[in-house]
């Protein structure tokens, strides 16, 4: 180690260089690249300078297409401009990338390479995005580690200035972008030395300027386009050498050596791998080990993939090579091979043909795929490929790392193969998101990385569920640079921070012989053994683990830390691992606490320090018995009664064993069954609501607001009391029409996440016990089994017929079966109650187009998904296309539904003779405007199907297939504000203008929630968000008003917590409106920063202060001579502050920058009054206009 060492993740390492070497960054958030833009924005807000002494300007755009356009413009006007993106974002940049390259523009952008969505979306890493951009003419430069990404980012910025070929620098999403690593920092001086100011001046000189005008971007005709396109060739021919020059210069400045193709391995290797990205690091360490074992193997690490220099490539091959195996981290269906493979094949063939191949023989070439969507890539896989390469007839176009039992492409693995790492400490921690485990581990890496000479690496695996999800941290510390870009396989230390995991997961599977195991346990050292399952006891005994327990929750509680046990567990880890002397470690933990939490106030620091001091007194070693004594083992992830697919395919995913599933287990086209979330009993709530029948007024508000559909009401006949489990709670049903029937509210005890929204929203209080409401939070564990029995009985009771209900009332909506249940949304989510309502009202005939975002993740992320079906097997049909195209996607669905229905009606008429005029007439003229009409038409369709089955006519067969389309389809276009206000607005606007019968539901959290709270155009003035760290200076876009201007669009703005009846009315009106409708729904969100159990109170305040005026604009009313605009809330009743300052997003600005906050809130308050006046005026004018007509 030479210079200053820092401990950062790949995103920060890259952003640090890109920021200092740029004058502007135009960006748009997308996982996993978002943090690069966020870092740049924070540094810019702090006034950090680039190497020229300026403060780079960071601009968030409405989409990556916009970011690329702005970057193109900025470059054309002369500023050194960069961007950060990934996956679909990169795809949206492609049109501009062609232009930028075509204009030979110096530019470097940075991509945390991520899978492009195909059969499914994946946020994880592979090269499918970068490879999709390879025809743009950009140079493609690959980094394999955090240190390399820091270095090659610099080389990219330097080389492009001379080469005039723009550079896409990429590194693997998550594996590198999110790996925390100790690296040597590039100081400003080094960056300065790398940049040739004359070239910067030349770049500026090529810019557009009215002082020396020219035009660029002409339209060319067949006569010259071709020649002009070829004119760039010299630049591309020169580029590889220019990159190598930059690498050489970098080497002379820093001592780190890079080549276009870096060879590692035996000098006389016969088998050589070719690979790029983080996999190259694993290949490097594996090849090194095998070479030490005497094997003649090597690896070429590709740095500059494009422009591909065949000469440089072949010259990097050892002369002895006999087989070259190329590994691509992407898949191109239908191609002869993946991109790197094809380029290597061409290079070797061409060089051989021209006699320039320096090897003794022309090597044999094989290629294969690995690591799609961050699939692990381990030394065993490297070895499997090298072993394959030594076979007389090796597989070509193979896969490695999976079991492809369908096309038989996969290579066999020796799973026991691993590489010894003497001196390396490896630790694995299992935690919950909420307990702070990952944060503490990131801190530990910094403590060790910055406090010792050891190298440090941390990699974190998260859950796809947004609440109560597991986190697994992998930490390595050692004297040598760490090249292991895969999760820990043999851990010296395992920390299990959550006791319930011992029955759920095989947490000690990766524990090495003699490792230390620390368990956060409510049971002390004497009792804990009896609470461990067979598998765990066996690991502990067989591997001779040193076993410790601590009741960290008790310590945390005593110190006022609630559920955050991070610093306590961290202290125990340091005390047990011995990486640092104990007292030294504790001192450093305390320093880290000061540093991390100091800004948040003394109390937080003091509480954590007190917890550190108390931790070790509560940690005890367990005397491990000699024999396994447990009578139970790991719980099966799903009930044995679950459907086969759920049990055999989704079950292993839940148990963290999805990697073991073979290709044949998975659908080839991305189609999965509905209604699977009911089988994943997550049991994450500490407390669940319990019903008090005597107090309950049966209003239905609890069920309406429940984000996870875990609290439900049912009205039923007396007979269902007879078979009910003992203690079953019920009350006489309080519905005038349902006299003599009974009513029960029941919670799904293992699905409830314990958010408390229902209890907070319950209006019924005991008259004798002020503490009691009609539902009350109660510890889950003691009542779980009993309530599970009740839940099972509850589900067995049939739903009341929809036709009997008045679905305009909250009370009756409670009795409609939710067809969206147990999603992975945050506890207390403000979006899902609307989604659930949609499913209750229209789910049995709805098709949902869902924009990418929170709702597509909690709605569609495996293993289990929440969209489900009713007892008739009907339910919402759901699909997600992209982020930007959802309105169009939904419009397409409407198009198809109309085509199908039109055809069905046509056939029905044509077949009237054989079917019978009466039935045909009844169907064609059916009133489908309410539930009883719909029920009738369904009966008729069933009758029709019976009749059709007896007809031997091709048209009858066709009609039988289309018959269900005779029932009205409800098309819903659902997405968040990032989609509706920003990236998808153009499409949304077009769809609304089309007048087609689609319903748009905008789940407006006023921020990009899924990617971590970036500002959107829905963000209100004065709120802090990412890219608006100083509070958003401009007001929220009034999407409702904009939609109203069309005049023929149904528009509603709703807030379920403020006026639930208005919300239901708006949904029904929107759906019944025969044109385009849009509902903009207020959604409280974790990104607002307060305890979400108060979400509904905040909604009331949002409406009361006028920030969120409720309205409905129904064009049908104009025809009745009324004003189409109805204001459903009163003029502002309370000051904006009374609402805003309850939320961290506003309050943090108020504390940090009180004067600015005051100014912005004052302006926002003024805006509220002005908007209200505008609405009131508009409502009156629209009413008057009709009068006058």
């Amino acid at each position, binding site marked *: 180690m030479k210079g200053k060492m820092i401990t950062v993740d790949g995103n920060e390492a890259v952003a640090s260089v890109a920021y200092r070497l740029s004058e502007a960054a135009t960006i748009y958030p997308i*996982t*996993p690249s*978002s*943090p690069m833009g*966020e870092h740049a*924005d924070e540094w810019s*807000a*702090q006034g950090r300078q680039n190497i020229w002494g300026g403060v780079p300007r960071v601009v968030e755009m409405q989409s990556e297409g916009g970011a690329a356009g702005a970057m193109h413009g900025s470059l054309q006007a002369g500023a050194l401009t960069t961007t950060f993106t990934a996956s679909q974002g990169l795809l949206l940049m492609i049109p501009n990338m062609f232009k930028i390259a075509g204009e030979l523009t110096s530019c470097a952008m940075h991509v945390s390479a991520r899978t492009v969505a195909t059969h499914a979306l994946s*946020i994880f890493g592979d090269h499918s995005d970068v490879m999709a951009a390879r025809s743009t003419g950009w140079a493609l430069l690959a980094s394999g580690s955090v240190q390399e990404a820091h270095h090659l980012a610099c080389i990219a910025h330097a080389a492009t200035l001379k080469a005039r070929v723009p550079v896409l620098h990429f590194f693997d999403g*998550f594996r590198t972008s999110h790996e925390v690593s100790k690296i040597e920092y590039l100081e400003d001086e080094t960056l300065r030395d790398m940049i040739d100011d004359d070239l910067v001046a030349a770049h500026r000189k090529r810019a557009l300027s009215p002082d020396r005008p020219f035009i660029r971007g002409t339209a060319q005709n067949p006569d010259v386009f071709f020649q002009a396109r070829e004119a760039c060739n010299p630049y591309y021919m020169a580029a590889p050498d220019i990159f190598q020059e930059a690498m050489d210069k970098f080497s002379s400045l820093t001592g780190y050596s890079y080549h276009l193709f870096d060879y590692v391995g035996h000098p006389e290797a016969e088998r050589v791998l070719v690979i790029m990205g983080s996999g190259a690091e694993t290949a490097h360490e594996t090849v090194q080990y095998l070479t030490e074992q005497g094997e003649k193997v090597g690896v070429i690490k590709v740095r500059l993939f494009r422009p591909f220099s065949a000469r440089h490539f072949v010259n990097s091959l050892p002369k002895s090579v006999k087989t070259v195996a190329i590994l691509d981290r992407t898949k191109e269906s239908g191609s002869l091979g993946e991109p790197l493979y094809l380029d290597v094949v061409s290079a070797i063939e061409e060089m051989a043909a021209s006699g320039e191949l320096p090897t003794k023989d022309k090597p044999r070439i094989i290629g294969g795929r690995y690591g799609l969507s961050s699939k692990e890539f381990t030394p065993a896989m490297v070895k499997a490929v090298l072993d394959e390469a030594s076979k007389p007839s090796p597989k070509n176009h193979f896969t490695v790392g999976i079991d492809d039992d369908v096309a038989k492409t996969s290579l066999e693995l020796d799973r026991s193969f691993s590489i010894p790492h003497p001196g390396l400490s490896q630790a694995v921690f299992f935690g*919950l*998101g*909420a307990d*702070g485990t*990952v*944060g503490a581990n*990131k801190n530990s890496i910094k403590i060790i990385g910055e406090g010792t000479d050891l190298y440090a690496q941390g990699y*974190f695996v*998260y*859950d*796809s*569920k*947004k*609440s109560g*999800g597991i*986190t697994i941290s992998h930490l390595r510390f050692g004297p040598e640079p760490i090249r292991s870009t895969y999760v820990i396989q043999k851990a010296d230390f395992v920390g299990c921070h959550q006791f319930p995991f011992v029955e759920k997961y095989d947490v000690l599977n990766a524990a090495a012989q003699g490792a230390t195991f620390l368990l956060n346990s409510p049971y002390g050292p004497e009792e804990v053994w009896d609470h461990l399952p067979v598998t765990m006891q066996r690991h502990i005994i067989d591997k001779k683990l040193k076993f410790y327990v601590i009741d960290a929750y008790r310590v945390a509680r005593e110190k006022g830390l*609630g559920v*955050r046990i991070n610093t306590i567990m961290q202290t125990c880890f340091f005390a047990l691992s011995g990486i640092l002397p104990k007292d030294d470690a504790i001192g450093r933990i305390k320093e880290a606490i000061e540093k991390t939490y100091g*800004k*948040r*106030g*003394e*109390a*937080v620091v003091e*509480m954590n320090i007190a917890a550190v001091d108390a931790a070790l007194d509560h940690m005890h070693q367990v005397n491990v018995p000699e024999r396994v004594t447990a009578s139970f083992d790991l719980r099966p992830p799903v009930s044995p009664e679950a459907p086969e697919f759920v049990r055999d395919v989704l079950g292993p995913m839940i148990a963290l064993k999805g990697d073991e599933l073979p290709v044949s287990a998975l659908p080839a086209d991305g189609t999965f069954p509905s209604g699977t979330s009911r089988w994943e009993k997550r049991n994450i709530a500490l407390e669940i609501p319990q019903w008090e029948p005597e107090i309950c007024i049966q209003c239905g508000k609890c069920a309406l607001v429940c984000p996870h559909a875990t609290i439900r009401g049912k009205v039923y006949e007396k007979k269902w009391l007879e078979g009910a489990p003992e203690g079953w709670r019920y009350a006489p049903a309080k519905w005038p029409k349902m006299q003599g029937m009974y009513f029960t509210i029941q919670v799904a005890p293992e699905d409830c996440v314990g958010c408390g929204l229902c209890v907070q929203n319950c209006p019924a*209080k005991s*008259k004798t016990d*002020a503490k009691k409401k009609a539902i009350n939070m109660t510890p889950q564990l003691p009542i779980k089994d009993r309530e599970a029995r009740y839940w099972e009985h509850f589900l067995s009771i049939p739903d009341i017929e929809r036709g009997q209900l008045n679905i305009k009332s909250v009370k009756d909506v409670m009795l409609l079966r939710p067809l969206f249940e147990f999603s992975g949304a*945050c506890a207390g989510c403000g979006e899902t109650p609307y989604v659930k309502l949609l499913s209750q009202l229209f789910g049995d005939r709805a098709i949902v187009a869902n924009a990418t975002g929170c709702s597509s993740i909690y709605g569609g992320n495996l293993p289990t998904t929440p969209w489900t079906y009713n007892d008739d097997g009907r339910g919402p049909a759901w699909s997600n296309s992209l982020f930007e195209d959802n309105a169009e996607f939904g419009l397409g669905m409407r198009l198809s539904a109309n085509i199908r229905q039109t055809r069905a009606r046509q056939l029905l008429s044509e077949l009237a003779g054989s079917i019978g005029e009466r039935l045909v007439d009844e169907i064609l003229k059916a009133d489908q405007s309410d539930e009883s009409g719909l029920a009738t038409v369904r009966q008729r369709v069933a009758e029709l199907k019976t009749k059709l089955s007896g007809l031997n006519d091709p048209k009858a067969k066709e009609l039988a297939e289309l018959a269900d389309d005779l029932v009205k389809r409800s098309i819903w276009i659902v997405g968040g504000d990032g989609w509706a206000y920003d990236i998808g607005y153009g499409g949304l606007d077009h769809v609304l203008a089309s007048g087609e019968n689609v319903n748009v539901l905008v789940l407006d959290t006023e921020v990009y929630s*899924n*990617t*971590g*709270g970036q500002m959107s155009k829905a963000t209100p003035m004065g709120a*802090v*968000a*990412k*890219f*608006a*760290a100083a509070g958003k200076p401009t007001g929220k876009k009034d999407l409702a008003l904009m939609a109203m201007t069309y005049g023929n669009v149904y528009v509603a703005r709703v807030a379920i917590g403020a006026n639930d009846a208005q919300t239901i009315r708006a949904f029904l009106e929107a759906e019944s409106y025969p044109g385009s409708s849009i509902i903009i729904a207020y959604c409280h969100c*974790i*990104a607002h*920063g307060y*305890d979400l159990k108060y979400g509904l109170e905040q909604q009331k305040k949002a409406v009361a202060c006028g920030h969120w005026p409720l309205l409905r604009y129904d064009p049908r009313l104009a025809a009745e001579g009324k004003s189409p605009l109805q204001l459903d809330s009163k003029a502002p009743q309370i000051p904006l502050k009374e609402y805003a300052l309850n939320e*961290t*997003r506003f309050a*943090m600005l*108020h*504390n*940090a*920058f009180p004067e600015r906050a005051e100014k912005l809130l004052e302006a926002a308050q003024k805006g509220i009054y002005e908007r209200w006046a505008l609405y009131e005026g508009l409502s009156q004018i629209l009413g008057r206009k009709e009068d006058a007509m």
Partner: protein
Amino acid sequence: MTDLSTTYLGLKLKNPLVASASPLTKQFDNIKRLEEAGVGAIVLHSLFEEELIAESIRLHEHLEEGAESFPEALTYFPELPQYGIGPESYLKLIEAAKGSTSMPIIASLNAASPGKWADYARRIEESGADALELNVYTIPTDPLVTSSQVEEELSEIVKDVCEAVEIPVAVKLSPFYSSIPCVAKTVTEAGAEGITIFNRFYQPDLDIKTMDVVPRLELSTSQELLLRLRWAAIISPRIKADIAITGGVHKGEDIAKCILAGAKVAMVASALLKNGISHASIMLEEFRRFLEEKRLKSAEEIRGHLSQRAVANPKAFERANYVKLISSY
């Protein structure tokens, strides 16, 4: 010209009307306006340790909520260079007030933990406050805690603070002690140079519609002054600490009553909250007129004139008087 000046806690005040700790004295602009309205000094709103702790924990919880749980959103808020949590903004207010006004600035402190009183007092002193008022109160709920334990704790806090700082210290008392003169004596012996009587608390009210407890703080009325006048009259001759009256001071004549009862200063909050800051100048004018009508040259001349020791009938302040009063209904 009648001399309104007085001394309080060893500080020279141009008149005995002091702006009491209230939401008004939270804002720098108000502090300036109070000086313009002519008050003799101001007591800043209290630095509440409990509030700082709650804010700190709340911010921490909300910044951590959902963080490092889900791969696409490792945080939900941008990192700010500072969050304005902690006593810094309070200390800055002291500095700003001192830097731009010429009247004495008295800070007010309510700490929650024993060790913290002295710590915050020191930081307040370093920020330039001229004096410190300790806003000590407890609502004892444990039947096993005796009144002497409560008083001992109070005395310990005062002692700790007085040992820690050089600036004069006043103690704001609640009216709910068994023997107010004894408590006043104890805190004086512990080092306090002033006693402020009395604290007014948020009083929980019961909402019979929602069946909930709701916090409430009504503005004071002149009626409340009577309680203060009695105790000022009783203790002012008996202890050496300066007495300040707060609660019920609404008019110029109320100031006069406070001085007559033996208080050094009369503190005002509710009247200004109700009538605006400029009301202070009206009160002062009324007070001046009263003195002029009595042909007094200075306010000091009447101080303690109607204290218990000074009056002809000291029993008037004792219980007999109370018996007489109710029997006259």
